[in-house]
């Protein structure tokens, strides 16, 4: 690999590491006082009556709000932890619930390569947590 190539890869990994670090540095209680939300392209009634297990199982540990989204965009589904629920788990639960309600299932990732290389291993650290990370 040439030098420019290495620099580019290193930059990618730096972004990747930043994603991981940001996740680790976020204390659970920081997210605890804000609502996490997704908009589901289904009616509030449908969301209410068929809340997927991924989210329903946290029912006792979160405050949950279901309200119509503006402009016919469906339903806003919001949760705020009342107990010790990692924000990572809640993001994952919200995304999975949305996918099940809209598309019937959560698409599974393809199996990872067997020899990702050192940079690829760092990236795998990120992707292993990416389902519960992000700006949600």
């Amino acid at each position, binding site marked *: *690999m*040439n030098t*420019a*190539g*290495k*620099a*580019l*890869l290193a*930059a*990618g*990994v730096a*972004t*990747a590491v*930043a*994603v991981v670090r*940001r*996740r680790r540095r976020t204390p659970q209680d920081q997210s605890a006082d804000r609502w996490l939300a997704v*908009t589901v*392209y289904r009616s509030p009634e449908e969301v209410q009556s068929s809340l997927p297990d991924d989210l329903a199982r946290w029912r006792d540990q979160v405050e949950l709000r279901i309200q119509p989204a503006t402009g016919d*965009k*469906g339903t806003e589904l919001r949760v705020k932890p009342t107990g010790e629920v990692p924000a990572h788990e809640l993001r994952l639960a919200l*995304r999975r619930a*949305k*996918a099940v309600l*809209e*598309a*019937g*299932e*959560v*698409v*599974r*990732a*393809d*199996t*990872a*390569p*067997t*020899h*990702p*290389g050192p*940079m*690829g291993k760092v*990236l*795998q650290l*990120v*992707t292993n*947590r*990416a*389902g*519960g*990370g*992000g*700006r*949600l």
Partner: protein
Amino acid sequence: MKALCWEGINDVRVQDVPDPQLLNDQDMILKVRLSTVCGSDLHLLTGHIPFMQAGDVIGHEFMGEVVEVGAGVTRHRPGDRVVVCSFIVCGRCWYCRNELYSLCDNTNTNPAITQHLWGADPGGIFGYSHAMGGFRGSHAEYVRVPFADHTAIPIPEAVDDMSALFASDSVPTGWMGADLGGVKQGDVVAVWGCGAVGQMAARAAQLLGAERVLVIDRFDYRLRQAESAFGVETINYAETSVGEALLEATGGRGPDVCIEAVGCEAHSTGPQYVYDQVKSKLKLEMDRPIAVREAIYNCRKGGSVFVLGVFTGLVDKFPLGALMNKGLTVRGAQQHGQRYIPMLLDRIASGELVTSHLATHVMPLSEGARGYELFKKKEDDCVRSVFRL
């Protein structure tokens, strides 16, 4: 099975990888027949999109035959011949329902990466890095197609395999540039880049009513191909001043619609090329927006610029002043393939949209590395290398 894998920067190799399995009810397994390289892959090869792992199967523009379907697949049966859009789509989120398919909410399995990078995550793509879902690509004997009912489209009898292949990615991409760029009857349209995407954008502009279409590149063999396939006018930017040629062609106004089909590794004959290359090597700039700058500068007042070329991050010297003061509309998108593919297949069947000339180099997958080398270096008059499985 055999598959062409990314093994590092500028290093692709055929490897043995496990056969794909049905992982979801709505999955199907496709036996790939044809799979082509795309300009977007070059951004992976050079490391512009640094979210790759060694051993990742690449390739996202393909067609083939259905061999196995999950319990939730209703529109396809084993034996069906289908073209698969490069974007994996659920078909039922708000974005899919509004035909903004590449923005699908439910198909990127690693949303955190692009949410941090861009503020929100687009949909998943085959073989296009872990930032876009980490799905295995199509340069392989078999590929798993998630949400198969929505991601894959049946090919009409009258369309042969090679013509259908490009309906996966380059044809809908080009069409989208002309359509969402707002091409109208009587327009003058300029297209930067004379690869498959630029050529398809030029043809789409003609079919949408443009009166004159000018395509810009430095490779004469590509410009000649576009001239003879579609009767477009051409500008070789290595020999002619693009700005002057466009003013001359438009009576001093500038093109009504400018379509950029070059991307983040644009080339230039001017000093700005060296500037951009140095800056991107030093990581002070991620992408080289040379053609975008030129499109914005040369577009007529109140005109529209559509960015089809792939960019990944931040650019330098973006002509915001020209955009603002000339009242331009600038738009870009990854392709919303499912919105156009059925219509495009019909146009291919009717003969008004020719695509198969793009396949200048057809070869077995075992020659994958050579195929990429030819395509990357634009050697031997290569427009697209196509792998026959």
